[in-house]
């Protein structure tokens, strides 16, 4: 089995099969670039991901491992709606996978999925953040994300008035 070494920003190395790594668009490109530039067809590619720390990279690889036999999700064809196909790809395993994560980790995972071009993972993580916003009141969103209002004077009221323009007709 052909392998590839993927190294995180803090130096941790992960040895994974190239077949698995190629589920990431970014790693696939890196492996193919390595192959083209390498004289030795047996050489093992080494890819350094300088922006993703080990804890996050491990989570990405864990997700890829679980989904290695999934069909590749089609690109979203609806141009009016940038939303992905998270519902289609989300399984109970995904829900259990995301459940213990705090928001900071989820955000880092979104960044990693975006960088490594792992569409399915990007979809489910964004969907998780979306689920903490959609259908909630402003106060509920503040609570969910531990945020405080920092509007001054009548800024909030002015914004509320502007929002009304978008819903009335």
């Amino acid at each position, binding site marked *: 089995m052909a392998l590839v070494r993927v190294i995180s920003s*803090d130096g941790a190395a992960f040895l994974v099969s190239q077949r698995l790594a190629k589920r990431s668009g970014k790693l696939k490109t890196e492996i193919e670039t390595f192959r083209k530039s390498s004289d030795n067809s047996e050489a093992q590619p080494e890819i350094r991901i300088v922006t993703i720390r080990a804890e996050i990279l491990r989570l990405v690889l864990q997700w890829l491992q679980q989904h290695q036999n999934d069909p590749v999700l089609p690109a979203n064809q609806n141009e009016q709606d940038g939303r992905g196909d998270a519902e289609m790809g989300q399984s109970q395993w995904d829900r259990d996978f995301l459940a213990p994560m705090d928001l900071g980790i989820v955000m*880092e995972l979104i960044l990693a999925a975006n960088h490594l071009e792992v569409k399915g993972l990007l979809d489910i993580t*964004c969907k998780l953040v*979306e689920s903490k916003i959609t259908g909630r009141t402003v106060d509920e*969103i503040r609570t969910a994300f531990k945020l405080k209002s920092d509007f001054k004077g009548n*800024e909030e009221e002015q914004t509320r008035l*502007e*929002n009304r*323009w*978008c819903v009335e007709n």
Partner: protein
Amino acid sequence: MDNQLLNKVTSWMPWTKNGRRSSLDTRLLEEQPNLLLSLIHPDITDVVLNYLDPKSLLSLRLVCKTTKSWVDQIKHLSRLRIILHTGIGNKKMKKVLKSKTHWCNFTLGYEKIPKEEHLVEFSQKFGNTVRVLEVGSVIGGHAVFNLLGSCSCIDSVSFQGINFAKMSSQSNNDMEVFVENLSTIKSLSIGNILFAQETELEHFKMLVFKCTTLRTLKLPFLNFTSTFDKDERNRILQQHVVNPLIDYLQTRHGSGSNLRYLTLELLNPLQCVVFIDLAIVCYKTQTIIHNVHQSFIKNLEPYQENVLETIGTLDGINEFVQLSRLNKVECISLWVSSATLLAERNLKNPRLPILKSLNLYLDSVEGDTGKIITLLRTILQMERPTVTSLKISYSRRGVGSADLVRAVDIANNFQYLRRLDLYQWDAFDDEFLRLWNGTGMSRIEDLSLILCSNLTDHGLIGSDGAHPVILKLCSK
């Protein structure tokens, strides 16, 4: 995202460098709750905001200054539409004109467009920011052309109608500025076209050929006066709409940039031969055609069957349609009475791999229902994980048996439904209870049950009043 940018991102998140988040990092986040937001790179917020509906975007504008600033960018504001018309019109217009936000998605007028003086001010204020503009009245006058002429960054334009007779009387300069700004739009929709002389329809060709970057185009309804008989209408439609469109598609194809979606106007039905000519070109240019009526697809020769692979929305089915070839169909409406026309080859391999919306009409049928059952089984007894909207309508004068559609098929095979619409389905409570217990029902966001006369409270609640079965739909 390039590496330089990523390095910048991670420099904002100190714990990403040393691989662990320290207690200090965590305490910092707890003490300054909004800090995390400032650590999030715009690329991430953009991705997340793309998942949100407009209502949620509006809520985010009210959370704090940072989340408001995320939303108040052109790419997200372009999904927040402001409607300005005469009813509540001018007061609202004045307020909007004073806003400091760069609003960029507007619908102007339904009966009358706002006063000309306001349109001039509107052009000055929002001309450089408007990305999406819907003009909800028939245009042709000087003021609207001036407005469109000032919208230099517009992406999407939708007209309720264009009066070509009036356009002919515009000064050349107005017209030139107007069409010049159309040269970079991505979406053009024209509701209907008013014209007095056939020659005025040349404007349609001119308009479309100016739009060299279009990705979606909705064809207009040609408002024929009663002086045109059916043959004349067909000739004019072909000569002034379809033929120029074919030329346009081929020209774009030659330049390497294709129109991706074409929506037909069902009120101007195309003759089969005309539709097939158009669809053959669409197949070559990989353009998906929406609003295709089954009556357009007749006498299809085997070498022309590729055209089935261009259809995005199909209204009805006939003996020339093969489900196996409908691999681009996102929305299909089927009347079960048409089952009598169908043979085995029509229903073979009915994958419909990207189908999102399915409408089944159980209309009037006489005689044997065997073929209807075959059609329904073909459609319903196969896993349809891509379908998010299902509508089933029984006709009172049509087939009467509720058994034709089985709850177990919907519950088991449509696992990702978000919208379910059942009209005059005469199933009894037990069937409904089977439905609510389906694996995919927890994703339902929009449920419509109309005139389901055998449904009682029991079919919604079940046997345990303390735990109504219907509430499973809210458990996600």
